[in-house]
């Protein structure tokens, strides 16, 4: 995938990716940055300078909630989904699946 498209996709779906990462468990910022890079096999990398403002924006909207916890001897700020965030994630996921299926139907088409 071309870098330009990478960025466009990332920009459009950053919120969805963060919400999805928090669906099953609370995570801190550093972990989320690493996870995105790992799960996307390096294709998607979040710039840290964009990640934290995004987390604060989601928190302001009430989609995630940050709380200080101690883990591994370190105080960390863990983020978890709020009910409102969970609902938003469900909606965004539906939209994403619908969109990606539509795109796949176009780009994966084979002529006999």
């Amino acid at each position: 995938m071309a870098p330009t498209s990478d960025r466009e996709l990332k920009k459009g779906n950053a919120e969805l990716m963060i919400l999805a990462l928090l669906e099953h468990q609370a995570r801190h910022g550093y972990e989320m940055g690493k996870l995105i890079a790992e799960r996307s096999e390096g294709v998607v990398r979040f710039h840290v300078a964009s990640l934290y403002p995004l987390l604060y924006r989601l928190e302001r909207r009430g989609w995630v909630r940050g709380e200080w916890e101690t883990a591994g001897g370190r105080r960390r700020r863990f983020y978890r989904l709020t009910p409102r965030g969970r609902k938003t994630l469900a909606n965004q996921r539906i939209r994403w699946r619908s969109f990606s299926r539509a795109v796949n139907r176009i780009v994966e088409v084979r002529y006999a």
Partner: protein
Amino acid sequence: MHDWKELVRVRLTPLPLEAARREEIIEELAQQLEEAYSEAVAGGASDSAALHRSLAQFKDWEDLRKAVFHAVEAEEFPIWQQSGILSPRRPAVWIALVLSIALLGLSGFRQALETVSIPFVMVSSNDRSLSARTLGRIERQAVAKGDSRTLAFVALHHPDINEAAGAAEKAIALDPRLTWISARFTQAEGPGFERAPWIARLKTWDPENAFPYLLEAAAVLDKRSHGANGDRRDAVLESTRAIAAAPDFLLSMQKAFAAPTYNSYASQRFELDRAVLGQQKWDRPSLLLLAVTSRPIPNSFAVTSYAKYLVETLGVTAEKAGRTEEAAVQYETAAQFGARMQQSSAGWSERLNGMVIRKISYEHLLPLLRQQGRTGEAAIVESSQTDLQDALESTVREYHLGEASASRAAPLVLISDVLVIVLGVAALGWLGLVTLLYWKENAGGLLNHFASAASVAPPSLLVASLCLYGAYYPYARHIMQFQSENQLVHDLMPFCESLTDPWMVRGFWLTMLLWPTVWCVAIAVLGLITLRWMATRPQNAARHEE
């Protein structure tokens, strides 16, 4: 051991959030740095390399501060808390604003700024400095002081011809040497206004001068054109027969060509206009040009037509009839008049007119002298003819030379001028907003947004101002530095004409700025590609590592 929180606090301050929230953010970002540092050290990096790698995660702390604030507060970052190069807390933007304002102290820059009004002034031949109201005020002051020259200035420029005539009467009564200002009224029109007394007054005052008779001849043409519906002003000049059938026109012209001097009062008028404009602190060469060029000049077509009538009709007819002495007199009369017109301190067009008349005369006089065997006189005329041809060519060439450089400078001046005005307004808006936001920080996010966007105005204003001053610099002069009307017209007229050229924009883009524009676009595209490449380089590098 590094103090990560302090490291972040120093870089992220000021961050105008609620204290507890700010501390949370600082701590969280400090952890991000620490984690990255620890990971790098665990991977075998040295302390300094690990620190460098950790800090490299946040390349632009100013952007981060703005982004964090915007994310938390959903508002634009307060302008007085910004630390970027264009922040009001930094000197750069203030220096740019002060320098832009300081440029107003330069007379040349003020002149350059006023050039934006020249196209309107030149087209309407009307300047607010020469409005009836302003001149009325000046007249009252001049009457109180008994200042005849200022009254004469009012008489020359007042848009109401009857008011102007009143001022002229007062000026001449105070100083009869100013009677030459009567020339202004010899071509004027207005309700209840009569030219004839002014022409008569001028002829009586200056009977040896050809100029009043030429103005009288022009008035005859005007009078005849009003005689019948549909008649054109120059109908008299359409044919030799028409000229011969206009005795009043012929009489005025005969007197003009026989008069021993030619003075169109150009130098008197130039000195008067320059002195009064200087006295009124109107140091604007364009205004002086407008004032000077509004002076009456003879109808060049009428003068040339009469010269041709003299030479090609009367002279040639006499020559063909064998009256060679009579023919020579006609040729010489025209040639001498042309020489007087050319050598006087008259304007560019009158000098050119004089040259053309001499040329017409010499073309007939030279063969006649040779035919009569007057070789000595013929040689002198031949030499004069050569000099005349050179003078004609150099006059025309010189004018076009000025025209070429002016046509390059004028569009740059005009565009820079418009930019300076627009950016000046934006800079003033910025100044107003930052002042308001300084005293009332919570005045509104929208104001902050506008103030941030307008931060670019002061430095842009300075750049546009310098461009304007640079482009106008060759024309920036105090009006007292112009020594004559000819110099003023030669140096400034092509520039002012280029400003008013309706096709300037098309001609300018097509002929002058086509290649510079292509170059600028090419460099801009190259720059954008480079910036794009630099921005995406880390991603490419990551892919390569993979």
